[in-house]
């Protein structure tokens, strides 16, 4: 068995198409997930993934960042490769919240998925418009993405400025009773600072990490590969950075639910996030290399938790290892 579980989808003993009774649920901000593994925003499209597996089998699905109006995103090429990583600069292309409410969300709910609706914005007003429309939708949780490195206005700047983030949260919090998850960026000196700002201003949970700022050049031309020049790094390479972010945030904020993200490509790595203090995880780039990765990881983790009843009991009760 290789350290890189994605390249060995066939070697492992789990048949994801076999019927499975989930044994180890988790609870995130009061919402029960049937298992601790969700998909990460931007690497899951219902229309694409439903051919590969039953999306209701996942703990949750975090959908693509959703803006008040359709966004066309950045020019292509939008992606490059790093050692054990992917770089992306989608620029939050999405068909807008109205389309989301008419099409994606009802289809996902009809399919039985637990939906974390990821919210994107260029300014406070954008976020408010989307949250207003999602407030009485069927979405189970809202994930406020203040951490995208690939848009010029807003996006990441809110996530790196605790004052701006607090003020945004003060506006969003009164708008909905749905659990608000704030998604944070690792591109800061100390992630516990925005984490604390978010929590003190009404976040019910945090998710981390979004992508790291990165870049590749083509040595055949000497020029950047991605049209946007820089992009966001994700995939196995970022694992230790995501683990440190979760661990340090857990230490600083013992009670806030945390969804751990970054570099997860196996049940073992998901488990490592749980030991670092996460209540649940989301799987991003691994789904690019292997469409069924999120479900495979959920199955692997479910089995690993069998031998860890203390951890499993804590998760089911909405508590964490640390």
């Amino acid at each position, binding site marked *: 068995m290789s350290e890189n579980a994605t390249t060995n*989808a066939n070697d492992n003993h789990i048949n994801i198409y076999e019927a499975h009774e989930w044994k180890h649920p988790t609870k995130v901000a009061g919402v029960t997930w049937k298992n601790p593994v969700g998909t990460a925003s931007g690497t899951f499209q219902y229309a694409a993934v439903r051919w590969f597996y039953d999306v209701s089998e996942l703990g949750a699905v975090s959908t693509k960042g959703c803006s008040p109006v359709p966004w066309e995103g950045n020019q292509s090429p939008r992606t490059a490769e790093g050692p054990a990583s992917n770089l992306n600069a989608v620029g939050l292309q999405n068909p807008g919240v109205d389309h989301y409410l008419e099409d994606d969300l009802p289809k996902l709910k009809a399919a039985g998925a637990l939906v974390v609706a990821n919210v994107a914005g260029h300014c406070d007003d954008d976020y408010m418009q989307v949250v207003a429309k999602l407030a009485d939708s069927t979405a189970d949780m809202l994930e406020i993405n203040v951490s995208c490195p690939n848009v010029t206005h807003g996006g990441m700047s809110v996530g790196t400025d605790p004052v701006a983030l607090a003020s945004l949260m003060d506006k969003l919090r009164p708008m909905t009773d749905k659990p608000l998850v704030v998604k944070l960026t690792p591109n800061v000196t100390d992630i516990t600072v925005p984490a604390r700002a978010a929590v003190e201003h009404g976040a019910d949970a945090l998710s981390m990490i979004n992508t790291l700022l990165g870049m590749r050049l083509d040595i055949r031309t000497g020029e950047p590969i991605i049209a946007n020049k820089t992009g966001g790094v994700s995939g196995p390479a970022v694992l230790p950075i995501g683990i440190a972010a979760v661990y340090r945030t857990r230490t600083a904020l013992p009670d806030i639910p945390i969804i751990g993200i970054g570099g997860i490509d196996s049940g073992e790595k998901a488990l490592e996030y749980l030991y670092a203090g996460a209540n649940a995880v989301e799987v991003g780039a691994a789904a690019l290399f292997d469409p069924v990765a999120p479900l495979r990881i959920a199955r692997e983790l479910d089995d690993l938790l069998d031998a860890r009843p203390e951890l499993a009991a804590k998760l089911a009760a909405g508590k964490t290892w640390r």
Partner: protein
Amino acid sequence: MTTFTPTHDVVAEAQAAGFFPPRHTVEITDARALADRVMRLTFRDPFIASHAKPAQFVNLFTHDDFMLMPRPFGVSEVEGDEVSVIFAVIGHGTEQLAQLKAGDTVDVLGPLGRGFNLKQDANYILVGGGLGVPPLICAAQKIASLAGSVATSVIGYRDERFAEEYVSRHTDRSWSITNAEGNVVDLLNQLETSGDLDVDGLKPVILSCGPLPMMKAVAAWAAKRGIPAQLSMEQRMGCGYGTCVLCTVDTVDGRLKVCTDGPVFTREQLGWGE
């Protein structure tokens, strides 16, 4: 704006039978160099062999964990349950794939994307350049099995006619040219002059794959004559199956995904030659 309607009919078919096969490991049955830094790789995969349509592609994955991203290649030929791709050695991924030998294994996902639309009875003119040839070989192979249509190939090579053998295996009407001799538009003009655009009363439909400047020139040529043209595009990809929006191309309908909205687009969609 991306369309979210499933347009991928092979997937729909597969779904009817259960789920679509995930990434899996297949055995290489043949590997050969066709020219300097051009390889043909054949692997055994009954599902892909029985479902792949011309201009659909497969994602191949290297064994090197530094290179996790898919390497997409058009299906070039299907024989029984064996599938071939033809590719140029460009960077480290294709360098590594080029080292595979019969008996080795490789990970694959596919078939992916929307292939050429071959529903009409027509004289399909396959216009290809360089490594755009593989999907056209597949198209020629497919058209040869259609009762009402014929295929004419018009291929440009940089310097060496590496795929000639495979193209001509499936079509009687094949022309090719190297950069030194001219380009595919020269050949199209010759076809027009000699009255060979229509064959047995079948109207021409262009299927093209190759470098962007070539495809733009071909689209302009076709537009001027009102000839339909389907163009197979390339873009750097993240997933290849429609989940990441990393592979867009600008169309008159907005930024569409090359992987599932394409790779085949009409010249009207691309707004080329209008």
